[in-house]
């Protein structure tokens, strides 16, 4: 079963330390739904773990992810989601059900339980973790102006409020992912 490669000295994994590690990635977070907050967070976490320079730019409804008032209250609605079905079941649910009073709260609660079940943190804690890992968080100037916000409204992890030109400059040579 084992082929002895005695001639081989030790095989050392390539951690990319010598190759410079100049890869860079930027996520544009434009949604404020609970389910759409996670894709960028999870991929950013993976990128940081690989030693990749990682930026997150929050715009439009994505501002809710970094607004102190809303970050812990993101919700999930089944309305408009034709893929909606109960966990583990294949039958799609009647769309109208999502419009019934309390359904969004119930669907949000269920999704939060599922996320916690795989030991993934809530959005606020996740952002703190990403910041600790070295991610840089940026808020969109236009969204800030439009929504009448200021830096004080945002979680401490946000570096600054920047305009699109600045974002283009800092994301030069980065892979950009729009969520």
């Amino acid at each position, binding site marked *: 079963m*084992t082929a002895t490669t005695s001639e081989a000295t*030790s*095989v*050392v994994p390539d951690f990319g*330390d010598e190759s410079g590690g100049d890869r860079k990635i930027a996520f544009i977070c434009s949604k404020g739904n609970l389910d759409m907050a996670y894709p960028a967070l999870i991929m950013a*976490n993976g990128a940081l773990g690989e030693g990749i320079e990682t930026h997150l730019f929050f715009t439009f409804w994505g501002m809710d992810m970094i607004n102190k008032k809303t970050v812990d209250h993101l919700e999930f609605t089944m309305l408009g989601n034709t893929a909606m079905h109960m966990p583990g079941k294949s039958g799609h649910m009647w769309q109208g059900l999502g419009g019934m009073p309390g359904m969004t709260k119930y669907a949000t609660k269920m999704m939060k339980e599922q996320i916690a079940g795989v*030991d993934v*943190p809530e959005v606020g804690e996740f952002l703190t973790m990403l910041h*600790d*890992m070295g991610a840089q968080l940026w808020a969109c100037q236009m969204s800030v102006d439009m929504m009448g916000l200021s830096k004080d409204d945002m979680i401490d992890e946000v570096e600054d409020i920047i305009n699109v030109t600045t974002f283009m400059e800092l994301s030069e040579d980065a892979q950009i992912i729009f969520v």
Partner: protein
Amino acid sequence: MPVTTIAGHEVHVDDEGFMTEYNEWDDEIGTALAGNIGLELTEDHWTTIKFLRDDYADQGTTATLRRVSTVGGIPTKQLFTLFPKKPAKKMAYVSGLPKPVGCV
């Protein structure tokens, strides 16, 4: 599975060089593996390695960064200082464990 010699011991590794047999690892090998990737192990490194080894024995998978931080009590920031750039993979390598498979 290739067999290679680390710190005078014959050990099984995968194609990338991660050890595959939990019980073949010891402190001396850990020190040699760290040396291979330019790390000199301090007490904080050993605390991390010990957590990873114990947790693997308990759980059967390598802890992710989040687990090392929330269960092991070692802040994520510190892990990036101790094992620069790719802490999860480097910690696993030095501890003689497979790469973590969890996403978060």
